């Protein structure tokens, strides 16, 4: 396994090579959503005709759709005409030293144990070395290339592997899926593409250009991961460092395809800016994530740790098409202040003997409002399908909310579906008990929360799990007493 910190250190410490002279060409399209802008994006990216057509179909679908009304929160007013749909790659304002950075942000980095050079890079402070994400990706790609693994930006995949993109794009999340997916299909900027060939076990965790670049992934990201027969890949998305972004709406699409006996593990740590105490200014994270276990005995596993965003609204789902395929969803969603999360999963059992497991751990503090929404459906062909759902809520304080909306649709009598749910509260007497043993309140909450989320964090790669654990305690700091 490659240690991303090492790589980043490596890069940040590298001697000045090419200088900062290559100012990234700035072009920003005027705000507004129309066919012209879509053609403009497509042309800018030098896309083939079929992709432009696909975008336009997405746009046509988008125009016919309305915002959903079933969610458990009030939909914020979104002015999609006020957004600029092409602004690429933006160079951040360069600062001269960490002294110019918000001290609160630095304190968080400190607590997360993020190395100094990386802190600089994240906050846009000049590093005494060239920081070139492309070259990172290149070294990294070299190793993968030997094994035939393709891991590149979406745009690059369109140029280099059009046949794969054409075959799988929209095959899991069609452009008509929902209004945000339709919007994404029309205007997606870039994203990641992964292809693991037959029989290959990807030897390292793939992450979106490491931590540092993850912040510039843009508003309408598109990710497509294909694991061919008997292959395995573990993919990490996101970043534990706090991410700020002026774009308020994030409507990404992630599609996973697992062929026969293949396994895809997809892990997310989401820590977008949640807004201030009153919820002003936070990100709306409206993402469509879905995987299909197309081949027999394949497996897709989603793990998410959601601590950021003003509104998190997503249901990473699995379609269990292949016989004996398996789907998993492990989630920790934390809300505090005025944050909202309406998240969960959908598992569709289609093939015979398919299995699924859902472990959802909601944590609500402050005035946060946390909803778990899940659907388990079993089709007529899915003999002996099994599902186990565990859906827990942990409340901190008296002003937060938590809700569970489990839906079950079974059309096969042999299916076994189990659902368990618990709600608990971190009580003052628990905190006092721990205080009395020499543990301060902050640590006490962390101890209880870590115990509560253990089952989910165990699914993450080790280093990531440790950071996620720290992130959780930082997020909940000051939420008790």
């Amino acid at each position, binding site marked *: 396994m490659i240690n991303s910190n090492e790589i980043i250190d490596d890069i940040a410490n590298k001697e000045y090579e090419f200088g900062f002279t290559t100012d990234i060409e700035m072009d920003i399209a005027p705000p507004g959503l129309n066919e012209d802008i879509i053609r403009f994006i497509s042309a800018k990216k030098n896309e083939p005709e079929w992709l432009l057509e696909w975008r336009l179909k997405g746009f046509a679908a988008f125009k016919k759709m309305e915002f959903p009304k079933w969610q458990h929160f009030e939909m914020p007013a979104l002015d999609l005409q006020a957004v600029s749909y092409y602004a690429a790659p933006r160079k951040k304002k360069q600062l001269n030293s960490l002294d110019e950075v918000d001290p609160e942000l630095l304190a968080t980095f400190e607590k997360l144990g993020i190395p100094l050079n990386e802190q600089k890079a994240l906050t846009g402070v000049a590093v005494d070395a060239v920081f070139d994400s492309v070259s990172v990706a290149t070294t990294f790609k070299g190793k993968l290339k030997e094994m035939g693994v393709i891991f590149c930006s979406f745009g690059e995949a369109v140029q280099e592997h059009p046949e794969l993109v054409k075959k799988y794009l929209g095959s899991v999340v069609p452009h008509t899926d929902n209004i945000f997916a339709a919007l994404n299909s029309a205007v997606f900027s870039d994203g990641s593409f992964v292809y693991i060939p037959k029989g290959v076990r990807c030897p390292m965790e793939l992450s979106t250009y490491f931590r540092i670049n993850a912040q510039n992934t843009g508003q309408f990201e598109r990710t497509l991961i294909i694991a061919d027969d008997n292959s395995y890949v573990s993919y990490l998305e996101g970043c534990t460092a706090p991410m700020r972004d002026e774009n308020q709406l994030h409507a990404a699409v992630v599609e996973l395809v697992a062929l026969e006996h293949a396994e895809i593990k997809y892990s997310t740590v989401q820590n977008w800016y949640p807004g201030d105490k009153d919820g002003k200014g936070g990100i709306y994270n409206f993402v469509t994530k879905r995987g299909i276990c197309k081949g027999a005995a394949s497996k897709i596993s989603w793990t998410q740790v959601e601590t950021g965003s003003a509104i998190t609204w997503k249901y990473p789902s699995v379609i269990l098409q292949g016989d004996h395929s398996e789907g998993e969803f492990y989630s920790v969603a934390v809300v505090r202040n005025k944050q909202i999360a309406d998240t969960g999963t959908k598992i569709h059992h289609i093939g015979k003997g398919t299995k699924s497991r859902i472990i959802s751990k909601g944590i609500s503090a402050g005035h946060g409002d946390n909803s778990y929404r899940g659907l388990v459906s079993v089709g007529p062909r899915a003999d002996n399908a099994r599902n186990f759902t565990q859906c827990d809520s942990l409340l901190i304080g008296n002003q937060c909310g938590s809700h569970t909306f489990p839906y079950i649709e079974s059309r096969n009598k042999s299916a076994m579906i189990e659902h368990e749910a618990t709600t608990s509260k971190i009580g003052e007497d628990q905190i006092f*008990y721990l205080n009395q043993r020499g543990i*301060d309140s902050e640590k006490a909450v962390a101890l209880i929360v870590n115990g509560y989320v253990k089952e989910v964090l165990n699914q993450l790669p080790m280093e990531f799990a440790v950071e996620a654990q720290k992130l959780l305690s930082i997020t909940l700091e000051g939420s008790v007493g």
Partner: protein
Amino acid sequence: MLTIKNLHAEVEGKKILKGINLEINKGEMHAIMGPNGSGKSSLASVLAGRDNYTVTEGEVWFNGKNLLDLSPEDRAREGVFLAFQYPVEIPGVSNLNFLKTALNEIRAYKGLPALEAREFLKLTKEKQQLVDFHSNLMNRSLNEGFSGGEKKRNEIFQLAMLDPQLAILDETDSGLDIDALRIVSNGVNKLRDAEKSFVVITHYQRLLEYIIPDFVHVLYNGRIIKTGTKELALELEERGYDWLKEELHLKESV
């Protein structure tokens, strides 16, 4: 070691402690008895720093420090331990992990390095044996699903692990059968030494047959109305509390 002077405290506007005076020296074993609702647990809570109690008057000194100025965790780190009358359950937090965290927090406060895993396990084994604590309870969640007796024994085990200077045991004997009572008392007796002091809160004389106190205090209506030696406990067992209450009323009406 501990000096309580004229301590008054209230909870939710209700006066509970109404002028407690108590002096505890190193190595002493004090028993506090008294009818239900007289304020025994409240006294323990105030000493430990539970924040729903407000101290309205008085002082508490612990090894030269003003205890009332310290946070609950700092009181614990200074060496005040409370074995709870009703230990809480904390699901998901293993007994072992909890103890390691507690021990290392206390050590850090004293400027000591964290115990290494091996040393910690060694200590755990040693103390388990000392107080006869089942090792299969170690990996379970803290007190979750423990029987009443197991919870009380866990309190004593924690006491052994954390090695405080002052241990306050709040009705550790209630709800224990005679065997468990013997085990718990044996544990406490083994932990007694010249440096450590105990305050044992109990309803029953029977505990004091195992744990012999140096002093027995009767707490009634928020005050210590009588102090004696272990014979007082026997007398209380025989005659109940009414005669003391009458004595008190007589005194007060004078």
